């Protein structure tokens, strides 16, 4: 039985798994998989051995002659210039939003994270166009990482805001002292 690598929805390479384990990884029909002996990453639905995953019944594949030793992970192969792999998610639109939104939410410092995301995101497309699929995957996961960090900080910030506003409505409005502290600089955001 072959052991497979696959590329998850965020563009990360994972492996190795037997077909049974792949099933519990919840791979989809268009997930790219690779196993020693294949020249290129293939959609899981095109691999005969993996048919059983999508057929809905486990254990229907025929036993393989011998377990192969696990070979070192082959880099996603794309040096021939044939671009059959779909481009990894570029995260460009998400990272732009993560850069712009903090200005509206008055947390402009955090848009630096979004800018790091944009830098990585813009590499995804150009590396892919050059045929460097591995680099493109790498850039994609970096872009995704920074965009997600920015997003979570943004969410935390908004929650903080709401808590602060509720707090101030509940306790502050009647207490002139507190509102004086908060109007100290004379400028709202």
């Amino acid at each position, binding site marked *: 039985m072959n052991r497979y690598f696959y590329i998850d929805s965020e563009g990360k390479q994972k492996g190795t798994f037997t077909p049974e384990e792949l099933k519990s990884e919840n791979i989809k029909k268009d997930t790219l998989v690779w196993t020693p002996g294949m020249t290129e990453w293939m959609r899981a639905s095109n691999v005969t051995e993996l048919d059983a995953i999508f057929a809905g019944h486990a254990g229907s594949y025929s036993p393989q002659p011998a377990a192969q030793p696990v070979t070192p992970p082959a880099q996603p192969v794309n040096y021939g210039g044939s671009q059959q792999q779909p481009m990894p998610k570029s995260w460009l*639109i998400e990272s732009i939003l993560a850069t712009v939104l903090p*200005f509206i939410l008055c947390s402009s410092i955090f848009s630096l994270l979004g800018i790091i995301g944009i830098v990585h995101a813009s590499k995804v497309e150009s590396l892919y166009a050059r045929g460097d699929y591995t680099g493109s995957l790498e850039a994609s996961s970096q872009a995704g990482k920074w965009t997600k960090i920015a997003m979570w900080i943004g969410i935390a910030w908004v929650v903080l805001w709401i808590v602060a506003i509720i707090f101030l409505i509940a306790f*502050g409005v009647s207490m002139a002292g507190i509102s004086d502290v908060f109007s100290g600089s004379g400028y709202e*955001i």
Partner: protein
Amino acid sequence: MAAAFVFYFFDPEEITFFPRCPFLQITGYECPGCGSQRAIHDMLHLDFKGAVAQNTLILFLVPYVFLGCCLTFFNGKRRFPKLEELFFGKWAAIIVVSGIVIYWVGRNL
């Protein structure tokens, strides 16, 4: 919706519980987002002159962010690839970021 409601009925100019910009507090310079709450308040009252006076940038960014959210939500990559490329491509990103930086420097001069 709740946020729009809050910004419509309370004027950030008068009421002090709206959060303040940490950058402005620390450095004394206005960040590109300063004035956005007042600008949104003005926009919701259809007072675009007022909004421009408070923060011109937000006038462009609010529809831009709205468009971006729509594209993400409705899977614009597949359905409107041209539109997405135009507004959220690599060059669009560079223009938006440099626009923000120019506005930042410009408003503090």
